[in-house]
């Protein structure tokens, strides 16, 4: 169980994991146990009125977004969602066994069987007795099917018997091989072996430690289910809710009430979604955990996520925790090129200045226009390539230029000949395509 949850956190498991093993057909089983929205195993699966199943959180987020079932686009309401408990049990059982089965499947087939094909078949048979293909072929020849299924039951039962000591006053029926109360065995045989599955479910199940523990677990769970689940939060009509009411609701829930109106609405909506999805869970999480999840949402999709867009990349780079070394290492070539360009331009400008301006009064007058040719660095810096290296390495800066560099988020003077290129840079969406942008901008 521990291993399964670890896999969940650190490794991307996927139904295609099975494709390179002899148990290819398990890929279908694996895929069927995954939510189509998050592509992960169902967590708290909910069934819609159109009979599609999704994770509680996934379907609630999706319905919040457009009110339609993601699979068939038919209109759906959160109210109509119902827990799909059978699916949940199935997923949990499969997740527990998955790592073991996968490890087993990845062991190269032992050459005991005469042909490789045969050994593959056997391996499949061992783990997955009821693959659809097998079942269908069995149905066509019904006599062989009953024989093999009977055989399977006997094998399973004898397995279970080996470590099972009948201390509950039951004996094995010689006809149907089920455990029956000793006192009732005669009546049982007289009645023609009626199905008594209900009485001893754990004995008639094919004996294995996995199902055994599963049974033990569900018996512990029973009292837990009796625990009252937290109450669902009602959706808010945001168009009629005033700002201060919304803020009060957020602070009452212990959430931040910062940001603009749109963000407040989004945050409260997400909170309701998280809360209500948690209400469906068999083991609801604590409020603190939910808050942490909202924190993650805030970072990835909420108010702070917008900061990661390229236009505000500068703000991230100025952040204390920004990894300057990695950044400068990655963009080293570009920085060098920019520095070389800046040096060239500064040199050219200086020689121009010294030739044209001889009196100190005149050179002081040209100091301000001097800023213009170096602004491309500032412009590019705004778009994300701002780095201390660039600032320090640019040679012989007059005081006015230095000030300009330090305030790298200030707008370049309108006189800049590169002003027209600003639009190009702003339009550029991805940070990573900076390289190409810089190249195309350079004259």
């Amino acid at each position: 169980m521990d291993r399964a949850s670890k896999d969940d956190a650190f490794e991307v498991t996927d139904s295609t994991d099975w494709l390179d093993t002899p148990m290819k057909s398990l890929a279908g089983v694996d895929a069927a146990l995954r939510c189509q929205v998050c592509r992960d195993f169902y967590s708290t699966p909910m069934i819609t009125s159109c009979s599609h199943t999704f994770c509680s959180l996934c379907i609630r987020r999706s319905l919040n977004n457009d009110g339609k079932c993601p699979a068939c686009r038919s209109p759906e309401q959160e109210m109509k969602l119902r827990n799909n408990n059978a699916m949940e049990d199935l997923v949990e059982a499969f997740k527990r066994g998955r790592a073991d089965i996968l490890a087993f499947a990845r062991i190269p087939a032992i050459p005991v069987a005469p042909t490789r094909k045969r050994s593959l078949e056997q391996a499949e048979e061992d783990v997955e007795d009821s693959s659809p293909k097998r079942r269908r072929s069995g149905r066509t020849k019904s006599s062989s099917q009953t024989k093999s299924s009977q055989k399977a039951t006997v094998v399973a039962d004898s397995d279970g018997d080996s470590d099972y000591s009948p201390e509950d006053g039951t004996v094995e029926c010689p006809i149907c091989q089920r455990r029956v109360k000793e006192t009732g065995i005669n009546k049982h045989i007289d009645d023609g072996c009626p199905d008594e599955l209900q009485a001893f479910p754990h004995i008639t199940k094919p004996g294995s430690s996995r199902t055994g523990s599963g049974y033990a677990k569900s018996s512990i769970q029973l009292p837990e289910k009796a625990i009252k689940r937290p109450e669902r939060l009602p959706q808010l009509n945001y168009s009629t809710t005033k700002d201060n009411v919304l803020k009060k609701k957020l602070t009452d829930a212990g959430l931040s009430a910062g940001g603009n109106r749109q963000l407040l609405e989004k945050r409260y909506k997400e909170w309701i979604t998280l809360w209500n999805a948690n209400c469906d869970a068999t083991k609801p999480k604590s409020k603190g955990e939910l808050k942490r999840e909202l924190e993650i949402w805030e970072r990835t999709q909420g108010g702070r996520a917008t900061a990661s867009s390229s236009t505000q990349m500068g703000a991230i780079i100025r952040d204390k925790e920004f990894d300057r070394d990695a950044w400068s290492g990655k963009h080293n070539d570009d920085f060098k090129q920019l520095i070389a360009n800046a040096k060239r331009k500064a040199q050219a400008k200086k020689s121009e200045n010294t030739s044209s301006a001889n009196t100190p009064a005149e050179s002081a007058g040209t100091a301000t226009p001097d800023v213009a040719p170096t602004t491309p660095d500032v412009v590019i810096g705004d778009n994300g390539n701002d780095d201390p290296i660039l600032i320090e390495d640019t040679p012989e800066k007059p005081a006015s230029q230095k000030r300009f560099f330090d305030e790298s988020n200030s707008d370049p003077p309108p006189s800049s000949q590169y002003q027209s290129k600003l639009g190009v840079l702003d339009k550029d969406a991805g940070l990573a395509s900076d390289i190409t942008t810089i190249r195309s901008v350079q004259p």
Partner: protein
Amino acid sequence: MSGPKTASSRTPTKRILTELTAFSSAHSPSSPHPNILSLVPLPSNLLSLRCILSGHTLPPTSGYTTGRWLLSIQVPPQYPNQPPTITFVTKICHANVKWETGEICLDVLKENWTPVLGVVGALESVVRLLGEPGVDSPLNVEMGALLRQGDTIGARGLVGYWCGEERFEGHLDEEEEGGSNREEVRGRGKR
């Protein structure tokens, strides 16, 4: 067991990672996807992907069979509830693709998007769109007009010409990403 799963496992990054893993293991070099020749994220950002589409399975009557295009995919933070933005980087002559920007007009990438689709599903719909252009809301008005007039031969000729002229010959490897980018820019500069 249902408890420990946090919302962090539902971020767009996680889902993209799952999709990419599934795509690469389902379509190994020995059994490649018929149309999606490669699909890789930018090394710096998992939510910006590049992909190469090939038209060789499209019907010859469409004129796109010789085409090979580079596309860029931007995944929004709200993914999968919001559709990814897919644009043609390589120029393509198609009634529903804007010539200047490569913007694609496709209902499943806009209002008919569903989280079930995924990036690969969206790209497959783009391939389908190439084979079946819709002339009702053309972004490339001239192509739309040609098709509406029923000048299929003219349209096919035009499409075939641009498929050959603009064909993207580069490759997308995760390590050589930067290289192919530059190549592409150089190619554009020549014209």
